[in-house]
């Protein structure tokens, strides 16, 4: 071969490299700038507009504030003026933004899958109604307020019937209330003043009844502002997510929780010398026998009864997972117990909420029966996915196909619907009018925060349109005329134009409002509010002014009508331990996905489940012993089967499970929906035997038996939970409750010490500093975040809020498996205890903004540095992607963009314009929401202040703002009067990995345990962590009651 000279060689190499570089063009296209044609009065482009509204993600209807930019909703937060949320918002509420921008949702009505227009489809439906009006059936989700009334009027006018059903509804607690007090209404639980909290399985901190309101109360109950810290007991067969925060957990045989409740009721009644109907009711209870039946020692119940007898308490009933055939009896027993403890009217307010006013499955079954037998002309399905939620034996598809016409009011077609079903998309709550009367003392008002994205119409508008087209009539709410002067306004002045326009009041004689003549649903709502809130308020404001005020605040407080609370039971509770041959199947709703309705939101699928760490799928929980027996671990799957069907899902080995049961999460396994819901996981509802309970007629979710065997495949699920055990390291620390309550100001020193490295005395003796480098100068601010681990419920709302605020992409299950989950804040969970002291510790971890940050010194280009406000700043365009900083960070807080992640069309509309989107090759991490800090500083300096007041900082970052328990507090550590400075000085305060001397700006406050640490002299973290994980082996030696494994487990 002829030799090539050096010149030719370099020419060749150079030319081929140059070929690769030609593609880079350093110029960008000139952008456009679009002004308005006619600017809206109140909108200043570049500044956000905020609208108060009501969230529709679940039935609770918490108050929200929607932040919009140039008419586009970009962020959702809680409304501080609304008592359901008081400024916080749960994970599902945060993710409801993704409902609006769902890339796959229907953009207009469809008839049998074919696009159509509203006029033709409405006339088609109304013709079918006119043909056979009494054959109309409504099968829908729980509806409140005006929509509930409108649907009721509509169905009355047709002569058909309506069923409102929730798959995991609260019919049992409503029925229990009816038995106990004669009123079929659910209670509202105000737990802020409780000293003892007992739960028999209700997921009151996760997704049961009013979880955000309960979290608000939880935060206050665990704080010491209201007195001693509330102690939480969980009494249920499986340790569920809400109960993970329990200080003590008594595991019971499934179905015997009611025995425990009645035993407690008897014990407390004896201690309190209760008299009257309640005392008579429990007089025949044999507490010892009951305790034995449940497998709990009587001594323990006596201890608990002592606590219940000596202070305010609150007792929650059972949840979905342990809701067997006797769940109403359990709810009744807890009401009795609440009554004896004196909680009715203090922490438990029967009838103070309208949640739970739903029908049971038996009503659903009768609708399906008449559909199957040809008796249904039009079947409306409103916001439900019955084929997904119901067991197969309910035969939903077959029945629905028997109706002459099926009209689905949903944004995408649920599964099991006939091919010729009509789809009428309502859009999202961010684009709709509505209201909520879930609380008896507050009416919430929902208004659109942006114009409808597509050709959709809300359920209220659709019902009105159909009623008009079918010429239906109903009785209107006739406006009272308080002054009998022909003027509906109370103040005497004639604002007729305003009133007529807003409320639809026809001033020519008949003052008919809130009937089918309303111009649209907005006017219907306004008409109802005119009659039910404006007039009773007796205000002298004009209706227009009053209405605008209500819109701004998101609702109005109203006088709650009192509910009878005389205990007058019509029956006694029945104990029925659930006996199942083989393994009992327990279903529990997913913490974020609920009953499956939220599976279409990428954020909620992406954020790992707080207990298992799994995302994007379904898993089954089995106990440690069972896993050994089956020879499985978390890399395997299990096959769960019975006569009804079979599923194969990933395994979670849990210390909170019983050996004789398997728990499967409900939420995934959809075959329909959008690209984020269809095709993930498996639906366990198909395995359930279709049984109903005798008291409510609702489906019994617990009571089916299955066989469990090792599955052939590997576990497909992504597990992001990391190590379940701290291995003795003081990451999430605990302090003993006695120490905390007796030394609130740290009189005895820190209660959350970790590993103590003694300082070498020679350093001080030589007059040297212990630190190698001086602390950076922070002239004005040193921002910090205090996270109270005792208040943290592990709900994950902070994770979703961060994804929403900071344009963090969803990467999907495959990339997450490669450890490329991009969330800036993660919720770590450690399960330190065994048995009765589970000691589950949730700890949210994000960039700690260290003063001596290990990441800053190793960046070769100074893309990350410590700024003068104490933040660790990350500048994306300077980063070259060496990833040395991520490598050096001891908290694993930094995330690298291995790809340029993009957003599908219409998901890209929810991006926050205040935050960059990052390209491949740059590192990103928590910024303490610098965009919000910058904004608040600009606002305050524009108003002439030199520094921002603490009150504006406390809930400034997205995570702190949304935390339901109020566990995260932001602020200026340099200001001694700020709330965070006081928290940082608390004896429970500590820094994560403080032995590394990184001096973080994030301060944690240790969790409080009511179980004395094994080594009391070590006082807190290290002793607690070390003790709990090893204490069980020694518990019997120490005679420790709390750590020992007594009969219960």
């Amino acid at each position, binding site marked *: 071969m002829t030799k090539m000279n050096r010149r030719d060689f370099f020419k060749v190499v150079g030319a081929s490299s140059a070929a690769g570089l030609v593609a880079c063009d350093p110029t960008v296209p000139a952008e456009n700038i679009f002004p308005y044609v006619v600017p809206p009065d109140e909108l200043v482009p570049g500044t956000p507009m905020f609208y108060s509204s009501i969230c529709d993600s679940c039935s609770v209807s918490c108050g929200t504030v929607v932040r919009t930019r140039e008419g586009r909703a970009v962020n959702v937060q809680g409304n501080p003026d609304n008592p359901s949320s008081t400024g916080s918002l749960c994970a599902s509420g945060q993710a409801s933004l993704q409902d609006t921008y769902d890339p796959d949702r229907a953009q207009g009505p469809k008839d049998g899958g074919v696009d159509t227009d509203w006029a033709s489809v409405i006339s088609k439906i109304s013709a079918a109604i006119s043909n056979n009006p009494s054959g109309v059936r409504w099968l829908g989700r729980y509806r409140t307020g005006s929509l509930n009334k409108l649907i009721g009027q509509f169905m009355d006018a047709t002569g058909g019937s309506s069923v409102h059903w929730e798959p995991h509804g609260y019919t049992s607690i409503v029925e229990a209330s009816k038995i106990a007090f004669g009123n079929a209404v659910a209670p509202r639980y105000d737990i802020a003043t409780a000293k003892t909290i007992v739960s028999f399985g209700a997921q009151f901190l996760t997704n049961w009844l009013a979880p955000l309101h309960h979290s608000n109360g939880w935060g206050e109950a665990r704080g010491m502002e209201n007195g001693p810290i509330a102690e939480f007991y969980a009494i249920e067969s499986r340790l569920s997510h809400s109960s993970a925060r329990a200080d003590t957990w008594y595991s019971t045989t499934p179905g015997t929780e009611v025995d425990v409740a009645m035993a407690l009721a008897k014990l407390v009644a004896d201690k309190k010398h209760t008299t009257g109907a309640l005392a008579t009711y429990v007089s025949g209870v044999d507490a010892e026998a009951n305790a034995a039946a449940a497998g709990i020692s009587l001594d323990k119940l006596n201890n608990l009864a002592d606590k219940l007898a000596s202070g305010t308490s609150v007792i929650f009933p059972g949840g979905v997972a342990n809701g067997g055939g006797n769940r109403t009896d359990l709810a009744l027993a807890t009401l009795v117990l609440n009554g004896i403890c004196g909680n009715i009217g203090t922490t438990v307010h029967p009838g103070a909420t309208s949640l739970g006013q739903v029908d049971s499955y038996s009503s659903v079954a009768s609708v399906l029966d008449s559909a199957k037998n040809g008796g249904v002309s039009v079947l409306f399905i409103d916001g439900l996915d019955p084929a997904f939620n119901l067991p197969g034996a309910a035969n939903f598809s077959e029945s629905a196909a028997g109706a002459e016409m099926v009209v689905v009011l949903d944004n995408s077609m649920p599964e099991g619907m006939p091919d010729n079903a009509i789809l009428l998309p309502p859009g999202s709550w961010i684009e709709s009018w509505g209201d909520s009367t879930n609380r008896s003392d507050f009416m919430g008002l929902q208004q659109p925060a942006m114009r409808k994205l597509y050709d959709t119409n809300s359920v209220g508008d659709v019902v009105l349109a159909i009623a008009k087209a079918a010429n239906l009539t109903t009785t209107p709410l006739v406006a009272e005329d308080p002054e009998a002067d022909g003027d509906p306004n109370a103040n005497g002045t004639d604002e007729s134009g305003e009133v007529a326009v807003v409320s639809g009041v026809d001033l020519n004689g008949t003052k008919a409002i809130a009937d089918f003549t309303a111009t649209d649903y907005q006017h219907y709502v306004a008409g109802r509010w005119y009659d039910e809130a404006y007039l009773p308020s007796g205000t002298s404001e004009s209706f227009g002014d009053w209405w605008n005020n209500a819109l701004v605040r998101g609702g109005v407080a109203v006088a709650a009508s009192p509910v009878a609370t005389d205990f007058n039971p019509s029956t006694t509770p029945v104990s029925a331990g659930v006996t199942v041959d083989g393994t009992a199947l327990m279903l529990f709703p997913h913490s974020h996905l609920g009953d499956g309705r939220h599976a279409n939101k990428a954020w909620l699928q992406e954020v790992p489940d707080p207990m298992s760490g799994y995302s994007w799928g379904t898993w089954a929980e089995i106990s440690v012993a069972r896993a050994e027996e089956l020879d499985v671990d978390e890399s395997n799957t299990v096959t769960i089967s019975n006569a009804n069907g079979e599923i194969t899902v990933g395994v979670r080995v849990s210390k909170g499970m019983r050996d004789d049961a398997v728990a499967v999460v409900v939420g995934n396994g959809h075959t329909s929906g959008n690209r984020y819901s269809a095709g993930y996981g498996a639906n366990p509802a198909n395995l359930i035997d279709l049984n109903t309970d005798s008291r409510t007629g609702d489906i019994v979710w617990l009571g089916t038996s299955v066989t469990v065997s090792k599955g052939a495949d590997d576990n497909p699920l992504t597990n992001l939970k990391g190590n379940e055990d701290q291995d003795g390291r003081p990451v999430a620390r605990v302090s003993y409750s006695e120490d905390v309550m007796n030394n609130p100001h740290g009189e005895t020193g820190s209660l959350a010490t970790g590993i103590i490295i003694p300082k070498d005395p020679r350093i001080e003796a030589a007059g040297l500093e212990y630190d190698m480098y001086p602390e950076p100068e922070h002239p004005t601010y040193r921002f910090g975040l205090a996270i109270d681990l005792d208040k943290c419920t592990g709900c994950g709302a902070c994770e979703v809020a961060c994804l929403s605020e900071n344009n963090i992409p969803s*990467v999907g299950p495959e990339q997450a498996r490669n450890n490329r989950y991009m969330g800036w804040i993660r919720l770590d969970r450690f399960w330190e205890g065994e048995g009765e002291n589970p000691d589950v510790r949730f700890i949210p971890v994000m960039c700690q903004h260290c003063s001596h940050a290990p990441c800053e010194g190793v960046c070769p280009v100074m893309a990350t540095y410590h700024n003068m406000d104490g933040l660790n700043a990350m500048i994306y365009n300077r980063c070259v992607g060496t990833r040395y900083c991520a490598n050096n960070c001891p908290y694993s807080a930094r995330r690298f963009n291995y790809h340029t992640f993009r957003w599908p069309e219409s998901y890209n509309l929810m991006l926050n314009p205040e935050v960059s989107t990052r390209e491949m090759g740059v590192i990103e991490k928590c910024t303490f929401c610098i965009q919000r800090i910058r904004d608040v500083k600009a606002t305050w300096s524009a108003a002439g202040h030199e520094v921002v007041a603490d009150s504006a900082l406390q809930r400034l970052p997205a995570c702190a703002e949304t935390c339901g328990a109020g566990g995260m507090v932001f602020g200026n550590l340099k200001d001694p009067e700020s709330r965070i400075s006081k928290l940082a000085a608390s004896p429970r305060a500590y820094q994560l990995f403080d032995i590394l001397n990184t001096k973080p700006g994030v301060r944690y406050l240790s969790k409080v345990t009511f179980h004395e640490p094994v080594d009391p002299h070590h006082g807190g973290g290290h002793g607690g962590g070390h003790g709990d994980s090893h204490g069980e082996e020694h518990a019997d030696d120490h005679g420790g009651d709390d750590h020992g494994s007594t009969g219960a487990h």
Partner: protein
Amino acid sequence: MYLPNRASSSAKTLSKIALFGVCVIGTLACVDDVDPYSPSEPFPRSLHSLAPPVIEGETRIAAGDSEVEIDVQPLEFNHSIHAGVQAIDGTTGLDMDCQYCHSGARRSPAAGVPPTQVCWNCHNSIDPAGREALTTLEEYCEPLAGTTACQSETPIPWRRVHDLPDFVTFNHSMHVRANNPGVEVPEGEVDQRVQCQECHGEMQEQTVAHRESNLLMGWCLDCHESHESINENYGTEAELRRAELKDCYTCHK
């Protein structure tokens, strides 16, 4: 690819290998891509930058270009008549305040350009007299007959003259505030406040707006470091303020 006439056969072989190598690497780079532009892809991602693709014939600008001429505006708006003193039709220029039209400058982080209605509020009573810009304006406005209200749903698609990269946040109202409009400049003293012209050039003498500054970070930092108004507005705290202004997080988001 240029090869000298006397290239040996091994040079050809090597060049083939090099080309092949480039192609292989290029293919490998694409393997982990999912089509980011497919409308049904749930987790779109790419190994490429966010920069939009090059389209032939489109106006392009480069960071650091001074004197950028954006000469493809939808209509020829003449700044010197409105904001300056250029005579037209026998009348002198209007010499309007910048903020009459750019009202966002003091209220918002984005100054923006005026809505069509603002233009039409005056131009509804001005005879176009054959000037193309004014007839185009009327077309963009579509005034409702008998009124001065604009009915159009199409805004005027102006080309942006002053544009910053997406990873930078710029708050206009803070800069106008440095202008301290409420403060009277005493007689005989030099006005130290930040004028619009300092960044935007003598716009009142320009016809079609063009950019006279390169808008690079160094140019911004020149004023953040040493503009006289900082001392004026902050007095003893000026040193601290300068440090704050040079902090990366002040502008980088």
